[in-house]
């Protein structure tokens, strides 16, 4: 591809997938990096040709650099890739606006044919897929992937530091809470729970099942956002994690599209729900219609 390929980086160097995708298009890959020098160096070593770095952000959040990123990319517009995280989306949005570039999300494949970009992507929460060809500037949102490993061939990218005019935003407080990070994607079995669970105290029962079945615990979106019973990185679905374990236990989950799209790759799906009409049963291999509070302990026993 002879047009410019950009990736935007918003403070988090976990952009391995962006770099790989950009590289696969075969052209000059530039990264616009907001964040510390360490982040910029990590990206530079990760296999891009050039990094434009906006300097140490100080008390300004990454979002404050959105206009600056747009200014830089506007000079040589092209295909712009960004991760689906909140701050990354802000930078990418500003760039897309400046270029009046369409935004494509949820791609399963991105490739180049001459100067046109060919993207196959899932649309409308995964009910359909479309393939589009794009000529002209375009913004693509995709999974950031892991932190890139330093390019063994050495030859770090050209680093250009630009001074940026930031938007009027300041971080005045940051509170962090501890949470246990999990890699749901690597778990062979996952126990997913939903609003059928009545109280956070009942999680102990679920953890017992997870232990007996050697599974990780995951959940539907409302349990992580709203109820806050589990951390956000444990919810599954169109806006959460996509997993493909050997077994997925959907417990007290109604099985709406936006959740199920995240587990469609599972080899076997077991559904436990008291409502015989629950949608989850239309996508399950084993259907147990009943009260999770009697079935889960029995299942835990049977697995021990």
């Amino acid at each position, binding site marked *: 591809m002879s047009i410019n390929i950009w990736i935007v980086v918003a403070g988090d160097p976990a952009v391995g997938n962006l770099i790989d995708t950009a590289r696969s298009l075969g052209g000059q890959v530039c990264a616009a990096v907001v964040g510390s020098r360490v982040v910029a160096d990590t990206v530079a070593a990760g296999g891009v040709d050039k990094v434009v770095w906006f300097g140490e952000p100080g008390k300004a959040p990454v979002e404050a650099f959105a206009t600056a990123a747009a200014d830089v990319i506007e000079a040589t517009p092209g295909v712009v890739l960004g991760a689906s995280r909140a701050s990354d989306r802000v930078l990418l949005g500003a760039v897309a606006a400046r270029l009046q570039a369409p935004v494509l999300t949820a791609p399963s494949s991105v490739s180049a044919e001459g100067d046109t970009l060919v993207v196959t992507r899932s649309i409308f929460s995964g009910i359909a897929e479309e393939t589009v060809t794009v000529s002209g500037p375009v913004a693509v949102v995709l999974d950031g992937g892991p932190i890139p490993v330093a390019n063994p061939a050495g030859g770090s990218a050209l680093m250009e530091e630009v001074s940026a005019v930031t938007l009027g935003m300041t971080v005045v407080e940051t509170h962090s809470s501890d949470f246990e990070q999990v890699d749901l994607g690597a778990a062979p079995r996952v126990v997913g729970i939903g609003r059928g669970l009545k109280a956070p105290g009942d999680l102990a029962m679920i953890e017992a099942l997870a232990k007996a079945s050697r599974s990780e615990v995951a959940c539907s979106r409302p349990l992580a956002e709203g109820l806050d019973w589990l951390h956000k990185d444990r919810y599954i679905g169109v806006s959460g994690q996509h997993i493909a374990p050997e077994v997925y236990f959907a417990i007290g989950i109604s099985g709406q599209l936006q959740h199920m799209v995240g587990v469609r790759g599972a080899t076997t799906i077991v559904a436990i729900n008291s*409502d*015989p*009409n629950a*949608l989850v*049963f*239309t996508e399950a291999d084993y*259907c147990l*219609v009943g009260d999770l509070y009697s079935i889960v302990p029995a299942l835990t026993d049977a697995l021990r």
Partner: protein
Amino acid sequence: MTALEVSNKAEPDFDVIIVGAGIAGCIAAYQLAQQGRSVLLIERGEAPGSKNLSGGVLYCRGMQEVFPDFLDSAPVERRVTRNYINFLNAESSIGIDYKDTRLADPVNAVTVLRAKLDPWLAGKCEEAGVFLMSGVRVDRVLTENGATGKRVVGVKAGDDELRAHVVVAADGVNSFIAQEVGLRAKQPLNHLATGVKCVVNLPAETIEARFGVTGDEGAAFAVVGDCTEGVGGGGFMYTNTNSISVGVVLRLDDLTAKRKVATDVFDHFLTHPFIAPYLEGGEVIEYGCHMVAEGGLGMLGEIDMDGMVVVGDAAGLTLNTGLTVRGMDLAVASGVAAAVGIGASLERKDFSKAGLAGYRETLFASPEGKDMKTYAKAPAFLEVERMYKDYGELIANVLYGAFNLDTKPREHLAKVAIRAFKKSPVKVRHLISDGIAGVRAL
């Protein structure tokens, strides 16, 4: 009795409040708005039609009187020119095929999908000036003690109360409003049936080829016998433009007595070798269970009281003649009649039962009201076991004797059909629900 007693006499918010934007409620609302009345139409579904099981055959003369351009401007699917009545046995079927182009001129019956018809009707109401409020479930009616006893003065939903001179209960077969104020008792089981139905998508050309119709013509198939596994009731297939409405209507008492599950009977129906070929290759795009009142006149409750009238299914206005389920045309007729009666009561400022008597008079003077009387005995007839089981087999055995000229063993068609059906992308949603759960879900 849970009706709220209210004593303050506030100025009403509307002339008329109608609960339920089904066919009966919409027609009453439309007609009253045409008279220049202020009308509030409340629907619990997020949008009209979203809670209503899709359509069927509508005998449309009444509708055409309300909307002269009904056939051209309303979302009707096909004009029914072919009626097919089928007695089904496990391995044989006997049909009466009644095809008549006279049925299309003037058009007597059309197929409709409620998901399309109800929004259209509600749109007509809004154009006529009705205030449509959707996504609101009426919790109870407001009553006051008047000179002649309890009278209805408004409705309550959540924390809000709204008042009107007259309230219309158009809230369908389970009408809790009519029950709440004591106009209807809880019905005995043999007056209720459960309908399980789905809509199967198929290309128009396929439908026309399979059902022997052309253009905008349509067919209505009524099926009794083995299709319901002996349970009192029947099945139907109606052609829409690009889909087929297919379902069974099963008597609740008989389902219970025979320990059958409605959705299982429905699955049996869908995979029956007579039915399956019509649906092959189709895709289920809508699926649901709904109660049907089929008690005819015996089911009809009190339909008026001080400050309130009851219309459509809420009043028990349904007719199951065995070959047809009629309810939509009666809903239209009762909506029209209610508007006449309420209009007169508003004119005279007399909202008592006596003041609203015009509703009852107009309803029973209408052709539909007369039919209710004509068919008064039909339900009892339909309870006779023979209708569903024995007749069909009997005739079949006779015909088998006459036509069976070769004795080579047959392949078990049912299995083939089931396989064919299961292979097609048809996915019956909620496959494993049982009938009772379906009924409760309403």
